């Protein structure tokens, strides 16, 4: 599985949405992206890439696109 596939899976499974919804997806734009959804997403990303995100990055994870930038800090290229 590629990193992009893992990344997309984390979003799709955390929010129960299809891949077609991912481009442009932002924080709170869907009901599922609330605080519980956010924590579920962070856990899914950490498991998928075997990383531990720090608090500032967890707070900054505000969109599908922003997440790709954040993961670069953890040497994960999407």
């Amino acid at each position, binding site marked *: 599985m590629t990193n992009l596939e893992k990344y997309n899976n984390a979003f799709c499974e955390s929010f129960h949405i299809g891949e077609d919804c991912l481009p442009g997806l932002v924080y709170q734009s869907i*009901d599922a992206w*609330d*605080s519980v959804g956010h924590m579920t997403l*962070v856990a899914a990303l*950490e498991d998928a890439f075997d990383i*531990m995100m720090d608090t500032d990055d967890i707070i900054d994870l505000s969109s599908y696109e922003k997440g790709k930038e954040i993961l670069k800090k953890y040497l994960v290229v999407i």
Partner: protein
Amino acid sequence: MEREPIVLNDYGVVLRQLTHDKIEMVRQWRNSPQIQQTMFFQDEITPDMQARWFMSLDPRRDLYFIISYKNDELGVINVKSIDFDNRSGEAGVFVYEERYLATDIAYRAHLVLFDYMFGQQGLKCIYSHIRRDNQKALRFAQFMGSLPDEERSTEDGLFLTLTFENYLNNPNRKRFINKWNRINLT
């Protein structure tokens, strides 16, 4: 002599017990439409009402805290109506700052406060009363390990109960604590 306000600091967040100089800020947050709509009491709160409410708080039994992250004051969390005989209290929270709404900051604030309530204040049960139309708050409470108590619930609101045991054994809490310890103890 006035008590020193309680300050709790863990998991990257700070909880400072509400003091008189902060009640106007809290009133403005509480009157904002996004917060008001989640509350049972939805009338505008006047400065006088706020002052009377603050004066009515029992400093041992009604503990309200401002939640801060890196000096950003972003919301309020509380356990009120603490009953030391039954070892129970009622929790509430709101996050005003939009940036933090759908993050894990409210979760961290709950862990800090509930560690204190269960661990140092000796409570064995914390309950919450949430509007049935506030699906996000209901989901959050269940994520913490709270269980619905339909017998105590009303048409408008659901009572949820979190026991100390369920709090300690909650898998979401365990995951968070494990991660926190790995980051901070290494």
